[in-house]
């Protein structure tokens, strides 16, 4: 069996948000939708202050609350541990968004074509590109898995939920998710926890680790090493409040 997941090393994170950006480009997500989010945190009072950073993708929980509440089976667990969203099937009820304790679901409130940062149909640009999002990733419209369902990428339809796919289109091609691939300081490690020799299994075995909101029983497949979870005294700084 395969159980994909991540080990995120907080010791190494500089909070640069490359992972957030690479995710947006790779998955063509629209304005305001961040599947990966890197918190910049501050704790304590001057001069006993601490500043640290924490990337937060979808946890791809083994016991995923979002899957249980989906009335149409659009949100489902794959055999390899990925929590997937079939955007052909999603009806936009947003139950998953309510059920998820991590806030990783993003709803397409606007027509994605009108919510992609710039006017990509500018006439002079049209002459160069033929129209549409110039950096559209062609892989995102393909079908994935034995189920042959369209589960990759974002910004496909207004009124549809989307979230981190662990870059299923890359993973099936033998590549790492875009966030892990881009990270300047190798914070994000992706791999198979069922393989005892995988890098993620070894990192987990050799380091004290935690998962977010462990007490919820969601059994996240994303583990953190090199730090402690945020507490009620942890303050977010430089918060990204999207212009939607």
């Amino acid at each position, binding site marked *: 069996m395969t159980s994909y997941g991540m080990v995120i090393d907080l010791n190494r994170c*500089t909070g640069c*948000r490359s992972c957030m950006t*690479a995710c947006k*480009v790779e998955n063509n997500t629209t304005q305001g939708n961040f599947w990966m989010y890197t918190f910049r945190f*501050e704790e304590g009072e*001057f001069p006993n202050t601490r500043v640290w950073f924490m990337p937060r993708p979808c946890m791809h929980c083994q016991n995923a609350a979002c899957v249980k509440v989906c009335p149409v089976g659009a949100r489902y667990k794959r055999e390899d541990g990925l929590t997937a969203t079939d955007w052909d099937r999603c009806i936009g009820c947003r139950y998953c968004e309510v059920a998820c304790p991590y806030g990783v679901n993003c709803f397409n409130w606007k027509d994605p074509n009108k919510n992609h940062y710039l006017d990509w149909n500018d006439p002079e640009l049209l002459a160069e590109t033929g129209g549409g999002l110039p950096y559209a990733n062609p892989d995102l419209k393909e079908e994935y898995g034995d189920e042959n369902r369209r589960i990759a990428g974002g910004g496909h339809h207004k009124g549809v939920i989307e979230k981190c796919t662990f870059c299923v289109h890359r993973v099936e091609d033998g*590549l790492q998710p875009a966030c892990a691939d881009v990270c300047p300081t190798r914070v994000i490690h992706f791999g*198979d926890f069922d393989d005892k020799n995988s890098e993620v299994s070894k990192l987990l075995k050799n380091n004290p680790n935690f998962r977010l909101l462990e007490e919820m029983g969601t059994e996240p497949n994303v583990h953190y090493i090199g730090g402690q979870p945020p507490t009620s005294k942890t303050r977010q700084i430089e918060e990204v409040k999207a212009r939607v």
Partner: protein
Amino acid sequence: MRVSRKDFLKLSATSAGVLTVGSLLSGGMKTLVPFEKGKVKLGEKFVPTTCWIGKQDCGLIARVVNGRLVSFQGHPDHPRNKGALCPKGVAQIQSIYDPNRVKTPLKRTNKKGIPGTWEQISWDEALNTVADRVKDVLERDPRLFVWQKGRSKAKDFYDDAFVKSTGATKLHHGAFCSDAGYRALEYTIGMHGVLHPDMRHTKYLLSWGWNITNAGGNKFCWLTWPQQLVEAKERGMKVAAIDPRLRGPAHFADDWLAIKPGTDLALALAICNLLIEKDSIDHEYLRKYTNSPFLIGDDGMFLRADPEEGEEEGKPLVLDQATGLLVPFDTEGMTPVLDGKTSVSGGAKTAFRLFKESLSGSSAEWAGDICGIHASQIEQVVNDLAANAMIGSTIQIDGKMLPYRPVAIMAYHMSQQELGFQALRAMLFVSMLLGSVGAVGGQFSDFTWKEYKNWSKFADISVKEGPYNIYLSGSKFFPINSNNSSLVAKVINNPEQYEVDYIPEVFLLHHVNPLGSFPDREENIKAYEKIKFVAAIDPWLSLTADLFADIVLPAATIEKYEGPMSATDQYVDATAMRIPPIEPLFQSRGEIDIYLDLCERIGVLYGEGGYLDIVNNELKLRDTDFALPLNVKPTPREIFDKYSKLNGLEGIEFFETEGVQLKGPVSSSKYYPYAMETPFGGILPHRLYGESLLVAQHRMMEMGADEIYYRDYTAFPTWRDLTVESSPPEYDLLLMSTHMIEFKQSRTPIPMMIEMVPNQVVEMNPKDAKAKRIADGDEVIVESIHAITGETRQVKSIAAYRENIRPGVICMPHHFGEYVKHPWVKGTGPSPNSLYFTGEGYVTNTADQTYLVKVKVTKAIGGK
């Protein structure tokens, strides 16, 4: 299942069996063909190239599908980024296709000084217009033509060739970056750089104003240093952060000294004093490789032997420890006294003794008071330095025993402060006292140990009588001179005061936006109003171009040939190129194309001393089989093809398929100056004592310069009160500014980055804010004051509570409001540059800009 990036690229390059030649670009460019796997799309290809967005030129692999750029990933073999990218590097994909780029050459149709209205014109008309204006001034007086640069994102051979072939006056951005530090290092040890560690071996690092998480540090824009830092931390390196704000060093700091901005000189002097008191100093280095043992007479000058035949002055004298005699410093086999005095010349003392005496009041308590930190924190730093320096120890590297002093300082942009030149000298003295300069694990400032031209120039600092050129080179005002273009603006506005007898007429702006990027926006606006003709080369319409350009020439971004770029990470040597993954968008063109055409029309392209001849020289093609003919206009690809062949490659095809030429590890004899045949490459003795600074001071005084100009030309760094501190007391806060990783160095409005940092904020300690009844998120008015003239300036911004900033200091990030017409830039808020001043009191003695001003902050009436 893991496929490393390296394998991925190999797969993509080789699994097709052979590389096929694409013909998407003129010149028959070869590109990588996509890897032949199940899901590959028809028309997909991968092009190795070099990032355009930052300063450190990371390696990229561009994914192109049906002629469109789809994404960038880091080039796995590039030593600088090793497959990774910063957020701007990834997000630049948006800006390449930005419909708000300047798409065609533009001609202004309204008057200058107000937002422009523009007519699209042909390249022919645009180039002819610019060339005619340039030709006209060159015929009358070449001094009237100024070429102003922000950044060329590659080796600067093509812009240097333009400047040299036209005789333009060149202005650059160094005086707004870290040039005060460069001047200090050039003066003291002859190296062109500021301060960085030998990250492989350093055990204790003073991160002195280094914004680890957002900004580069010496020589690199960003990514390489954090990569090396996390490795060093995991190896056990300790980091003490000296910074008014913890956001930069963040959790990488083991200790935090929340120093008051601008007081670094006092701290460095105290550290020097305590190291000497503890005798934690490297006597051998100081005696052998510095001028510390030189004897100084009561006039402040070296005691010198009688000149030998043909010499202008005799060699400086030292006291021979064995004989007690005065002998030339380079007497073979002699050991000089480091800390001593003689009875000659009114009791001449060694430079070291004088330094020690000059530090007598510089206790930890004294510095603690000035710097706003506890004396015990300073003592802790001194103890850690002394313990980790392991003075006297050696380590074997490549079979050679070398001094091992694993302590160092990282410092860069912080050198732009009023006493920056002398502060950086004093900070370097810390490393010199410990003997860590050039030692394994010790203090470095460049990647190879080679002499910079200012080393010998600064032995005798030229101070001339006027009239001066527009940046006051060699003047009695700023004899060491970092070419500050805001000061140029001041000169243009007051030429007589600075003994300048002309005002330039034509400016060519090369990727530069002085009104947005350089402090003292008002001074710059006034100056540009006086310039008769301004042309700008830029992919976006900058604030400066919008208000003052007559002609705008659209530059391509990544879609052009540019290079060669050094790709070294300081340990592995490599060269890379920028290869166009797609054709230039709209009507934009690469800068080399633009300069070739412009030079042809000005009449300086061909023949000896022309643009092509200088390009040959700059790329070392001259007098080789690969020299460019001086009578034929080449394409940029042809230029780089010749360069590649000169360097033993089959041609530019190498870079078009591989992207980066790896040359292997930097040899220890190049990296470590102690491993060189002559230690330090013979750039000796290091100048602890700045005799020539004192000589310059005397010259300035003789010429009647005011004290404000000569007061910091002292032989040793000397603390004095900062100009800003004489501001009226109601201006009770110090404003400093910082970079954010989302914007730093990009000179590009990238929507995805602006989305993450949508507006300017004023970071304040909650203690300060609450005392002024300012809540987190309140709209506030920040008003700055010029301590000498009393002039005030105001901006509106939003207060943000931060416990990571010391009370008494507020902080505003840069890079807001630089490209005013861009839809994503509108409403993002002011630049701190609107609050800073330039000129006397706000520049260093080397004409370097400072980023410190006293302000008051009040809640905006009607704010939330």
